[in-house]
């Protein structure tokens, strides 16, 4: 991740999921890891692509690709580890990402009420980046798992 943020303005991590660049609030992001192996086994949970091993711990791999870009993410070695709250307890998950992630600061313009899983927008030197509400993105993508289409409009 690239540094270069001020403590005075909110920070975000910009990541590439499939063909889309999106952002997540910095607070929910733990680290970027390289993991050579994705382990898969039968299950029925939407969006979960498998698990990776990280320092002896097992992290579920959460593929945002279907909901964000309309298709499963391409195979990758890099995962952004985020912390989710599930049943009021924290759990770390790995999101497959393509290429480098970028740590940026900026003021988020909130999305309207009908923003779906977009919490707001960031203006990065003229490029509009959508900031995801991760839990909403997971819930909406899982609910639409049989009808995955690109849900976000290109803004840039």
């Amino acid at each position, binding site marked *: 991740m690239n540094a270069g943020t001020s403590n005075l303005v909110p920070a975000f991590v910009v990541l590439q999921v499939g063909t889309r660049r999106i952002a997540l609030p910095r607070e929910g992001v733990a680290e970027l890891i390289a993991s050579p*192996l994705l*382990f*898969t*086994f*039968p*299950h*029925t*949970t939407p969006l*979960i692509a498998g*698990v990776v*091993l990280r320092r002896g711990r*097992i*992290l*579920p791999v*959460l593929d945002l690709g279907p909901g964000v870009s309309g298709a499963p993410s391409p195979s990758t070695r890099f995962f952004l580890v985020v912390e*989710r709250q*599930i*049943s009021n*307890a924290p*759990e770390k*998950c790995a999101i497959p990402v393509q290429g480098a992630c970028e740590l940026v600061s900026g003021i988020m313009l909130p999305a309207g009420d009908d923003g779906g899983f977009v919490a707001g927008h960031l203006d990065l030197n003229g490029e509009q980046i959508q900031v995801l509400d991760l839990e909403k993105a997971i819930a909406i993508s899982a609910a639409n798992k049989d009808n995955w289409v690109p849900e976000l409009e290109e803004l840039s």
Partner: protein
Amino acid sequence: MFSISDYCFVISASSVQEIRSTDSLGGNVVDLDRPVLQKVRHIVERDSRSYYVVSGYEHFHLPLSRPTSVLILRAVPVAVLVDRIEEMAEMRVLLGLPRSFCGEERVWYRGLTVLGRKVVPVADPRGFLTAEELRRLEEENPGLLQTAGHAVGASRHERERV
């Protein structure tokens, strides 16, 4: 360790009564009168006990596979069709399934383990047929499990007559 389709699974040795080749079951198999579950179509009788035969690939929603072995379980009336027995392995750690997994796998697995740097799911013997599924099978095929031993004999007799 056993495999079904392209996937490996682990089950504790203490929960397996016997491992047989599917070829050796032969006349010990009885068709269910009313197969209420896609994954269970037969009963097998071994040593005066009867077991529902669960198709492993259908249980785990996997593509059609070619089972060659059957795991006869100890504490539940279940025999599981699997493609292959891979090896015996020592399981040093059992890790809980991450909470992000919220589907049927919570019933299927006791958790995950790491064997030779691979993460493998640990099958729950009680997950192959839940209490509700057992109840439905028994309801639709009343007494069949208890009388399967006799049925096997009768069915053999029928076949001989035919």
